[in-house]
């Protein structure tokens, strides 16, 4: 498992700009070739460069797993077309629910999904339908409602908010069927999704992440 540091647009919060699964990486347009090469080298995926709803915060607005990419209802037709043309192996679903920051409210891997506790029943059903499995439940992580922002979970492992209790961690681990660990990114930030991009091949972290933090991340995501 390769762990590398990255910074884009002059900020360490790389997770708000990049969404990735094992096959594709969606990110806004960047002229810097070195950054793109680095992402391809570490994550080993195809790169799709587009905005979502004219916003560069792709990581916040997009969620999904290796089979499905969920995009918000505010996405423009051109952007949807670009994603659908590039990502032919996976389903691209537009989720018609009131909140649009799907990256913040849906935490999922191929086995299960944890969603924002204030979603209505109809919205939950729509998410279940678009994901294609029934193992979807409402919940919180360390009393934080936006579950997608405080954890990153892949099909192999995951990293969760540092203040989570042991019972909660075991529950989450059983629910997602992967081993989980706690940690921080970017010198003490507990909002892991904002500073970490990961799939089964590699991990990218914000450039201000310290040595001990990288050690914890490596331990969490190692096979």
């Amino acid at each position: 498992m390769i762990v590398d540091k990255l910074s884009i647009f002059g900020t360490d919060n790389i997770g708000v700009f990049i969404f990735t699964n094992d096959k594709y990486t969606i990110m806004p347009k960047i002229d810097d070739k070195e950054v793109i090469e680095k992402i391809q080298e570490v994550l080993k995926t195809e790169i799709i460069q587009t905005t979502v709803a004219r916003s560069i915060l792709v990581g916040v607005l997009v969620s999904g797993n290796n089979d499905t990419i969920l995009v918000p209802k505010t996405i423009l037709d051109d952007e949807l077309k670009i994603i659908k043309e590039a990502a032919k192996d996976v389903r691209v679903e537009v989720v018609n629910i009131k909140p649009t920051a799907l990256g913040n409210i849906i935490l999922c891997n191929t086995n299960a999904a944890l969603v924002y506790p204030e979603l209505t029943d109809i919205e939950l059903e729509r998410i279940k339908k678009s994901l294609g499995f029934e193992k979807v439940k409402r919940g919180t992580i360390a009393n934080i409602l936006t579950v997608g922002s405080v954890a990153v979970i892949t099909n192999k492992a995951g990293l969760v908010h540092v203040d989570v209790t042991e019972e909660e961690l075991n529950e989450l681990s059983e629910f997602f069927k992967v081993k989980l660990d706690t940690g921080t990114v970017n010198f003490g930030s507990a909002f892991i999704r904002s500073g970490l991009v990961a799939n089964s091949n590699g991990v990218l972290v914000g450039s201000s992440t310290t040595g001990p933090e990288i050690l914890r991340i490596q331990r969490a995501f190692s096979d």
Partner: protein
Amino acid sequence: MSEQVQQEVKKEEEQKQLTEKQEETKKEEKKEERKTQTKEVEKERKKSTKKEKENFEMVVNFRRVFMGRRTVRAKRAIKLIRYIVHRHFDAEKVIIDPLLARAISTNGKDKIVRKVRIAVKKVGEKTYLVRLAIKQ
């Protein structure tokens, strides 16, 4: 005869040139190899120096310690250091150097310093020693 001799001389010259070229290319290759080797060695040195770095220095800001009761500020500051080290290093036991505790309350227990620079060192399995970082 004279033509044959000239041809032989030409051939010899060509051979000489070829050998010179080959030698030059070999030299260049050797130079490149040396460069790559030196680069690798430098990288390894850098890595080793990174690994050898035992102390991790960080600055703890006591901004949040100042909120609340005045008489227990020093105690709260030490608790904050313990919490930060526990959070950052996944530590179970945090040992605080008495000199650091003294440095925090140099101006008295009610008027502690605003920030402190600490050096954290691993001394055992999930056990860390926190000392005052002194500028050299």
